[in-house]
């Protein structure tokens, strides 16, 4: 199967199929789509820790050492794996997760590192704008018939589809509590249907006389947007319909709401959801800030994992916890409440679910958590690993608009094999 071609053709066909139908055609597609059953592909939730979390104060601790900081390591559900005391709930789910303690990625400036860890390519290289993991997943394993976009980014504009084009752009949700911007019509439902009817007439008449690809895709884009507005699945965006008990487990705040929304979207068939938690750039006051941030992550991430599990979705949904780099193993001397600075050389990320073999630690750092002592995981290795777990062939070539072939993950990747 060549997914790119067949999906694109399908897309064109479905758009063309609508050309002949009546004015209300845009509304009718919904019913037929709801009836379809789709084989379930894997999905992914990226919990993006913006700013670069300190590995030494989260998942790779050195308690009691000179530069170890004040946090204690606690026992997890897996014998021998210890993590920060500020992740007590997640510690009980360690059997579903793997910690990679040997990330080593080479980019130490926020902008460039975020770009690199989202796309697998260094910013500006080759004069191309590369697609992010979310867009790649949406294109490769997303259901093209899904009325909801297959890539949703919550709390952050994130990184887009680059040369893959507008169809795989993320739908950005600024605030999970407020939902998708401009999703509701400005007028009552009946009047909105009238308007869409008028629009469809104009579109048909323009396309009949011009027969241009541009007008066809203009029309298809609007049709998809209207479909989303009318779709039952779009109710997933409305958190007020969630029972208060299950909502409470996530904790409070934007990140908790984001994780809850992520679960609801995955349930409706969205392929990739990114949820951002900012504030990890702890040059100062590192320990208080990491404690607070961990306190937001712990309930939300563990509620997410147990909800997915309860719904039978954990095996098909990979949850990634990561930032753009780690932080210096040494504590800096910035004032009374010092912090740690940017550190891409050795740091940690966490994977859970997605059918991986949990309860593992991949790689190891040295006594100070300063250099990788075992199994360095580069950005390419990491991207290829995620692709493997999601069932994406990371060696596949995609085409840029001028027909230049670009691999999903560049040459030189050595994916982690003991997770499968």
């Amino acid at each position: 199967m060549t997914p790119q071609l067949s999906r694109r053709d399908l897309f064109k066909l479905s758009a063309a199929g609508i050309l002949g139908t009546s004015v209300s055609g845009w509304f009718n597609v919904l019913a037929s789509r709801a009836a379809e059953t789709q084989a379930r592909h894997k999905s992914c939730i990226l919990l993006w820790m913006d700013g670069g979390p300190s590995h030494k104060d989260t998942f790779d601790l050195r308690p009691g050492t000179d530069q170890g900081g004040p946090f204690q390591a606690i026992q997890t559900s897996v014998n021998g794996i210890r993590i920060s005391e500020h992740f007590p709930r997640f510690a009980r789910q360690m059997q579903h997760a793997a910690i990679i303690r040997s990330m080593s990625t080479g980019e130490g400036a926020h902008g460039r590192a975020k770009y690199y860890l989202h796309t697998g390519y260094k910013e500006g290289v080759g004069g191309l704008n590369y697609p992010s993991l979310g867009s790649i997943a949406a294109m490769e394993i997303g259901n093209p018939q899904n009325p909801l976009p297959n890539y949703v980014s919550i709390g952050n504009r994130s990184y887009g589809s680059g040369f893959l084009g507008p169809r795989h752009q993320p739908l950005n949700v600024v605030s999970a509590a407020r939902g998708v911007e401009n999703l509701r019509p400005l007028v009552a439902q009946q009047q909105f249907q009238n308007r869409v009817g008028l629009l469809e007439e104009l579109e048909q008449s323009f396309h009949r006389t011009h027969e241009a690809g541009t007008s066809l895709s203009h029309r298809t884009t609007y049709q998809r947007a209207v479909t989303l507005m009318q779709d039952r699945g779009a109710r997933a965006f409305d958190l007020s319909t969630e029972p208060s008990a299950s909502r409470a487990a996530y904790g409070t705040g934007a990140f908790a709401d984001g994780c809850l929304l992520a679960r609801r979207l995955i349930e409706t068939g969205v392929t990739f959801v990114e949820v951002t938690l900012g504030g990890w750039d702890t040059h100062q006051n590192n320990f208080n800030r990491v404690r607070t941030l961990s306190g937001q992550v712990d309930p939300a991430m563990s509620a997410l994992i147990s909800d997915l599990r309860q719904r039978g979705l954990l095996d098909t949904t990979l949850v990634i916890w990561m930032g753009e780099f780690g932080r210096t193993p040494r504590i800096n001397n910035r004032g009374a409440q010092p912090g740690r600075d940017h550190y891409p050389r050795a740091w940690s990320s966490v994977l859970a679910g997605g059918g991986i073999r949990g309860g593992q630690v991949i790689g190891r750092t040295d006594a100070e958590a300063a250099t990788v002592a075992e199994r360095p995981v580069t950005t390419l290795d990491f991207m290829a690993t995620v692709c493997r777990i999601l069932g994406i062939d990371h060696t596949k070539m995609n085409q840029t608009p001028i027909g230049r072939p670009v691999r999903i993950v560049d040459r030189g990747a050595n994916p982690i094999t003991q997770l499968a």
Partner: protein
Amino acid sequence: MATQLRGMVVALGLLATAPWMMGNGQAQSAKNAPKLDAAELAKVIDREIQARLNEEGLKPSRLSDDGEFLRRVYLDLVGVIPPSEKVIAFLDSSDPNKRAKLIDELLDHPRFGTYLGEMWAGMLLPRESNNRRLNHKPMQTWLADAFKNNKPLDKTVYDLLTATGTQEANGAATYFILNPTADKLTDNVTQMFLGVRLQCAQCHNHPFVAIKQNEYWGMAAFFTKTRLSANPKQAAKQGAQVSVFEGAAPPKGKKKSNLPQGAKIVPARFLQGEQPKLDPGEPYRPVLAKWITSPSNPFFAKAMVNRAWYQLFGRGIVNPVDDMHEGNFPSHPELLKQLTEQFKANGFDLKYLYRAICNSQAYQRTSRPVGDNKGDKEFYSHAAVRGLSPEQLYDSLTAVVGNPGREFSKGPKNNFRKGPASPRDAFLNFFRIEEGANPLEYQSGIPQALRLMNSPQLTGAAALNRILNETKEPAQVLEKLFVATLSRRPTTQETQRYTEYVGRQADLRTGFSDILWAVLNSSEFGLNH
């Protein structure tokens, strides 16, 4: 398929002699080529286009009607749809020269410079994480002045490439502040001014062109003396100005800070040309600038002509527009040659070039296909239907519905900003199009469509009120509404259909607000056709 094959044969036939392929200096125009005025050049365009259509057995579509032409030429030359009074005056004028006159008028329109300046600044300053919060505006203003005053393009580019000083004193310095390394400058200069994508040669020899990795770093070497007085981001945060200057030559074999990791240290050499003698005591950039903007440069004039053509047609005579090399044949080699010669003979006069192209029948054809020419995308049998740029869309929308809000109160105090400076910037950011994206493809997605359909700022209630204050006669309201948005009068069927629709609604305002909504979201409004 047959068409493609024939194109290949034609192109191959030219292989041995095509002047656009020749090396340094040889592509100079024959001395005896007569200098043509814009009207004469327009005829050359039509002759060449027609010859190729005949060869392909394609029938051209008829000329555009007045409204269609008016809207297109407004969008292409000043970046916005025409105002209602202009539409009425143009549609009702019986002057046989009204199209040529309108082209002249728009080339002198105050927006011509600002529109082109903003477009060029966008191409010259690719957005990256390191520069997206820096101040782009001085570059736009500097370019806008040059375009408005029709400064010869060779002079503009020379002044740009040799710019020094602060953004405040010299807007062109922005180019070096926002592209702070030798590799970024090399990428952009070769892509923009030589029409060649050199980026892949940064890391390896070019896959299909005879450009070796060393040639990339040979070009980059011209920028190794370019220095900034401070880190732009830090300086901007402190409200300080950064100054661009030419520093000392890097010591032999030694890497300098503005070259990236993995750079090759080679002597400066013109692309596929000679290795000039450089005086280590003198700046390097003027040497490069002089070579690029010389009439004998084999790339520059051709690349500029191809870019102007691309802007007006949505595709280059060599396409993609910045991928000119031996393996990428022009669709109309003789036309490209003549345009290039005349552009040089007329002193790199950009308005002259625009004037000639816009006066051609090829440009003025309708975008409606006829017979079997609808599949044609490269022979100009009919005008292309192109997506609007975010700037064109915003300016056209607000020309109808009014400005959605005042400028944000916290404007950029210095050269570093957090968040968008204005509703327009926010819109442009939201609708940003991937660099190098094909204008013949619609580039917006679902979030953008949702914004256009459901944003309370874009309802156009004020515009509708204005019209309803003038008249309440449904056919007249409809006409005013169409003229203001689609730059044409409604057809008889449309008048009948939509006045009927309005009659069925609760009141006039509801009915017409529905029609205005549909029109503003339609292909006919959202595309350049």
